[in-house]
């Protein structure tokens, strides 16, 4: 990161006319003070941004070879896999990149929930993040339709039909979404157009998200506000190098999927061309949408299911106010901390139910897990805040760091 007061005359010339270097310095450079105690869970934000860039770059290359037409889409994907130079690599990066994007973002969200990063004064920051999540889901869903395999086609059928649950105007809305009276080439073509558009909308919201982040700065593992310069370190070089190391670890995991198990996270049915006359035995979305799919199916009524699924994200918008605790971080909240891990387990159970056909005991488990999901936010969150007596957080970030590093410091002194 070039410092704005650099002696470089070209930098000075540009800086005088467009202060882009000082802007960068205040965004990810030495001019941005960050709490000194951020742990590795705070790597996920920059990782998510990097994966978004990987998705956009690989996606642009794929779009050069892909044909968004019902008769040619499947063949064009195979053309990419077989005839385009390193087409298989670009496509596997893009398809597994979607999974990695959600993995990173889900860790990011649960980190925010554990450390109370949604609480005052970061409510809008949290909201913008949820808007990004919704846009990601829409993009991922439409992207999954593009190869025009069986799961693409029938996944699109299930999801677009959800809109028919809206009273009165539901059916016309579905016809309008499809661009016809059935899912066919017009549907695929508009999904392609929107799949290309939405990531750039995400980029826009990400900019707002980072802007909002910089107003009050990052939350931190103690949840205590920064009280002065002794609590912070410059983002560069400390967090740039920490993020780079995290990026390395992330890329190793990513590369494992791309090079050694590229189709594991997908579904074999999507290598069968779309066939409107043959419904697959089990229609399942990609893993990252399974918990929501389970909530959708937990309600026996179609409209009710759609409302529940919408509410499962909607309720997240309310948690800055549903959480009544004065302490931000679950670490100091002995009761709430337990409930946090139960919620995480509950979401995993929902995902497992979503992956299985809605029969037998899966129905009951799905309904219980769905009920618990909402109970957590609507009951546990406010009541835990009211009735729990939290432990006292440390006085300041720097004192918590000294306490943690205490052993090392005295050891160093002893050596000297």
């Amino acid at each position, binding site marked *: 990161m070039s410092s704005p007061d650099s002696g470089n005359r070209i930098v000075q010339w540009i800086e005088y006319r467009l202060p882009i270097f000082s802007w960068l310095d205040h965004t990810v450079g030495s001019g941005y003070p960050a709490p*000194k105690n951020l*742990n*590795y*869970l705070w790597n996920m934000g920059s990782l998510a941004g990097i994966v978004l860039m990987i998705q956009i770059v690989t996606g642009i290359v794929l779009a050069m070879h892909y044909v968004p037409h019902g008769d040619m889409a499947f063949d064009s994907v*195979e053309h990419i896999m*077989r005839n385009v130079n390193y087409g*298989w*690599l670009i496509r*596997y990066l893009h398809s597994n990149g979607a*999974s990695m994007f959600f*993995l990173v973002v*889900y*860790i990011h969200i649960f980190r925010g929930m*554990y450390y109370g990063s949604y609480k005052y004064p970061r409510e809008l920051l949290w909201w913008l993040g949820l808007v990004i999540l919704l846009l990601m889901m829409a993009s991922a869903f439409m992207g999954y339709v593009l190869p025009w395999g069986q799961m693409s086609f029938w996944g699109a059928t299930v999801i677009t039909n959800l809109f028919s649950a809206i009273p009165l105007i539901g059916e016309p809305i579905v016809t309008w979404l499809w661009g016809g009276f059935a899912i066919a080439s017009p549907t695929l073509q508009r999904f392609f157009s929107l799949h290309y558009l939405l990531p750039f909308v995400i980029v826009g919201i990400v900019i707002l998200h980072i802007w909002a982040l910089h107003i009050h700065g990052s939350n931190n*593992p103690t949840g205590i506000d920064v009280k002065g310069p002794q609590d912070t*370190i410059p983002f560069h070089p*400390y967090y740039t*190098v*920490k993020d*780079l*190391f995290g*990026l*390395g670890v992330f*890329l*190793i995991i990513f*590369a*494992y999927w*791309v*090079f*050694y198990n*590229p189709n*594991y*996270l997908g*579904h*074999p*049915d999507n*290598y*069968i061309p779309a066939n409107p006359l043959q419904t697959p*035995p*089990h229609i*399942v979305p990609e*893993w990252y949408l*399974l918990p929501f799919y389970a909530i959708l199916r937990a309600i026996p009524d179609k409209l009710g299911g759609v409302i529940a699924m919408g509410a499962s994200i909607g309720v997240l918008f309310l948690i800055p106010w549903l959480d009544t605790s004065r302490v931000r971080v679950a*670490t100091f909240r002995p009761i709430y901390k337990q409930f946090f*891990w139960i919620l*995480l387990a509950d*979401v*995993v159970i929902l*995902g*497992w139910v979503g*992956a*299985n056909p809605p029969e037998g005991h899966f129905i009951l488990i799905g309904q219980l897990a769905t009920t618990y999901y909402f109970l957590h936010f609507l009951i546990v969150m406010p009541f835990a805040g009211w009735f729990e007596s939290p432990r006292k957080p440390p006085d300041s970030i720097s004192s*918590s*760091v000294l306490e*943690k*590093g*205490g*052993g*090392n*410091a005295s050891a160093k002194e002893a050596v000297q």
Partner: protein
Amino acid sequence: MTSYRQMTRLRASVFALATGFILLSAGPSLAAEDSRTLKSPGFSFQGPFGTFDRGELQRGFQVYQEVCSSCHALKYFAFRNLPRIGFSEDQAKAIAAEYEVTDGPDVEGEMFERPARLADHMPSPFANDNAARSANNGALPPDLSLMVKARAGGEDYLYSLLTGYEDPPSDVELGEGMSFNPYFGGRQIAMPPPLFEDGVEYADGTAASVDQMARDLSTFLTWVAEPDLETRKGMGIKVMIFLILLTALLYMVKRKVWRDIH
């Protein structure tokens, strides 16, 4: 010190849960097919260093030619792919020339038949799906190009299916023209047992047991489904070594930069 240990444990559990989440959710959807556990004979292309055995590939191609191709298309396989499975270019041209493809229109506007060239794809045995159904008792023999990737279990599924034909148990009544195969969804399959002892005479003299033919064919169809598998795995090794070294270096840089903070 304790809070640091707590953090480590927290981090470990988050990653473990996230990983478990993926495995749990993807697992069942991939192992959906009812019926019994697939056989895993072990293939040379499995594992991180896997490569295809050229002998298996060429024998598998021969089984496709002599057995499968009378009903099943292989539309994504081109004759120019033959050198990649170990045939010489002249052999590939000779094999292509055994097939007739429709070309045209010529200068008079007529379509005409000519011997296939390297640029052509494997011709389909039937003109269209209706012709294929009508010749096969109403069942449509699927294109085999992507079969290994389009079925849970991949090459193991294919091998199990090909070697898995049995006499039906007494409580199963087979439909007309159907065969019993416990590895097939619904256990009744319209394809009669395709492989018989010495059903093909291998060009390289290998004994053509059912097991051998099933193994060769599964290998060949894996190649057709994923022709860049060897490139992918070979590149993966280099990428992994590079990333692990880079990450180790970044970790050391991180330690150095952060040394004075704690």
